[in-house]
């Protein structure tokens, strides 16, 4: 027992103060993309051609980027001859509506949370069942890490539970393979209504790199009513945590 106590003392307190203090992210972290269409050259399609998932289209001379498809690989920014596209350090990417993942200029006002009273139910305790439906284990791992002492998801009253019967909603990763579709639908139905659905990662939102494969369903969007979209490949744990905290009011997690 003494050894454990000494080890505990040496390891120290390791939980991030986030969201009360700003996050410390590496300088090369690729967060929210930023467009500067004024810099675009006429008839240039370089970014759209470089994108592995068709996340960028050029409308007139205006690039439009869909974060729901984006892998944040930055191949577009690397190829852009005029610096019209860059990835910022902004980690807060979650939105309530699929359309709000489109980055364009001017940027329309994003949709707010659902007003059907569901969120009031989750304010004190929110239990989620995670389903991987073709996920590569990166989104899964960065959801899992939220339950470690580094992030301590429990302090926000959020818990990942083993049974859908105990859950308020599903947190889905992966492009929803044909072979997982039935299991996903059954798990959804096993959650007592009203239910919440959260799609985490490019795959769950759009199919990601697997979009339009006959073996997948381009994410959960066409199959279940998704409430919250958390983009990334995979999203940083803080991006996921920020998304989950949208389900709470700031006061509830200690924000003044």
């Amino acid at each position, binding site marked *: 027992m003494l050894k454990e106590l000494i080890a505990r003392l040496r390891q120290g307190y390791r939980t991030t103060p986030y969201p009360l203090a700003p996050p410390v992210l590496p300088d090369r972290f690729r967060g929210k993309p930023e467009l500067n269409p004024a810099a675009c050259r006429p008839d240039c399609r370089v970014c759209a051609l470089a994108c592995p998932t068709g996340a960028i289209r050029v409308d007139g001379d205006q690039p439009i980027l869909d974060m729901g498809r984006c892998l*944040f690989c930055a191949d577009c920014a690397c190829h852009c001859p005029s610096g019209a596209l860059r990835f910022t350090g902004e980690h807060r990417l979650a939105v309530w509506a699929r359309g709000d993942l489109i980055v364009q200029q001017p940027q329309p006002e994003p949709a707010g949370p659902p007003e059907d009273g569901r969120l009031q139910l989750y304010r004190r305790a929110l239990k989620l069942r995670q389903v991987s439906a073709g996920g590569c284990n990166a989104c899964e791992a960065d959801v899992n890490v939220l339950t470690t002492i*580094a992030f301590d998801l429990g302090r926000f009253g959020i818990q990942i539970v083993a049974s859908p019967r105990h859950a308020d909603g599903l947190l889905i990763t992966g492009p929803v393979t044909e072979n997982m579709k039935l299991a996903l639908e059954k798990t959804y139905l096993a959650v007592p209504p009203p239910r919440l659905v959260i799609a985490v990662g490019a795959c769950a939102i759009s199919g990601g790199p697997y979009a339009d494969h006959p073996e997948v369903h381009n994410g959960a969007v066409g199959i279940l009513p998704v409430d919250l979209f958390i983009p990334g490949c995979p999203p940083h744990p803080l991006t996921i945590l920020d998304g989950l905290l949208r389900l709470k009011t700031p006061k509830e997690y200690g924000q003044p």
Partner: protein
Amino acid sequence: MSPAGGLVSRNGDAVALANVPRFPLDAFRAQTVSAVTEGVRVAALFALPATAGVAQLVAILADGRTGSLSTAVTDIAESYPALTSDCPQVHWFEREIAEQWGIRPEGHPWLKPIRFHRAYRAGRDAWGRGPDAPILPSVMDFFRVEGEEIHEVAVGPVHAGIIEPGHFRFQCHGERVLHLEVSLGYQHRGVERALVGGPTPRTIPYMETLAGDTTIGHATAHCQAVEALAGCSIPARAATLRGVALELERLANHTGDLGALSGDVGYLPTASFCGRLRGDFLNMTALICGSRFGRGLVRPGGVVFDLEPDRVAELLERLDRTLTDVAGAVGLLWESPSVLARFEETGPVPREVAETVGLVGVAARASGLDRDVRLDFPAGIFRWAQIPVSTWQSGDVFARAWVRWLEIQRSAEFVRGQLRALPDGPVRIPVGPLAPNRMTVSLVEGWRGEICHVALTDAGGRLAHYKIVDPSFHNWMGLAMALRNQEISDFPLCNKSFNLSYCGHDL
């Protein structure tokens, strides 16, 4: 000539397809079986798409004693005598061939689908299913033990944790597991088929998400293959940075696995500490390239990000600090009798079984097999810098945990050494087009074990066929063997001690 009679190459060599010898089926079969009897391993066995009703069966034999890879081909039609009866380690490969191409390996003792998809050749099905018959995962006959007191337990595909889907079917007598059958395919995304005709801008994202926790391993195996086919040799600095990233990936996952093993026996201090420490290693990878999983780092021709002296110093400082904490956290395991009592003699895989099944990676080394691509088939930085192979004899959960700890120490030492002596020069060079009608075998020792990519080009220098063998493909059977005569309540512990990939298997 190699013992197998095939065309001999080294890891990362490209050979002309025309030079790969084609044998009559009998000779192909005989020399493959005899090579395996002499201790050579089958790294890959796959079929090439049929033209005019004739397909080609390709065997890649890996001889760890000489570092040679031998490739041989034979023609097969709608069926052929299975190799599995004489060479059990190819049992899963032959099931894959049957499923993908509708070619029946006759006499295979357990010929069933492994991923549950339609054959790639229209109108063909090894099980005679019609084109409209539904194919549902795990809907098949499972191996059954009959008897009055025998009961069956079915688990998955959705499990009680944040984990990928798979189905496990246990035949039990009371608590005792007589047999476990693993049924996968839920994660099948059709990667191999989508790679044909490439490379395209999606090729690299496919590689980075084949098994997302092995981003560096698979991306490196792929880039090595592309560079071989393009006749390009990457700069020493790039090879070194790839090696550093590969070992950081190993450090993160091994640390996480030791924490998870600790959690599975109810010993929470190490579980808690390692959960955080795994992230510290991932954050070192993020310091290099911005992504915790190494997305965007490895590309054909080298790596995308260089390290400035300040960043190297920061990495070294973090590595020392984290390794001290890992040593403290993991050290508790070996000093806790309650942990050791649960680890020792649980889920044993004897050496002979590991050899027969063809295990790779940590699981093989924990059963006393001296197998490690980094030493046996060195490529990249490992041609100049060697990491001693860590083995243990007991083959149980303890051995798989202990080998991980040994590897953590050796990988950290390697990373430290490489960062202190980074060669000068560029980190990336341009890669030309792929040479036509060539083939390459690319091996990388990922944190789970041997990753094997085999790439073939067509007359236009496009990818004509791409075979991926994740270490999990070899090792799932090892988990089934480890469960024999164990208590079913030890399944989570045994499963975690292998920690195999579902998507890496399902592709």
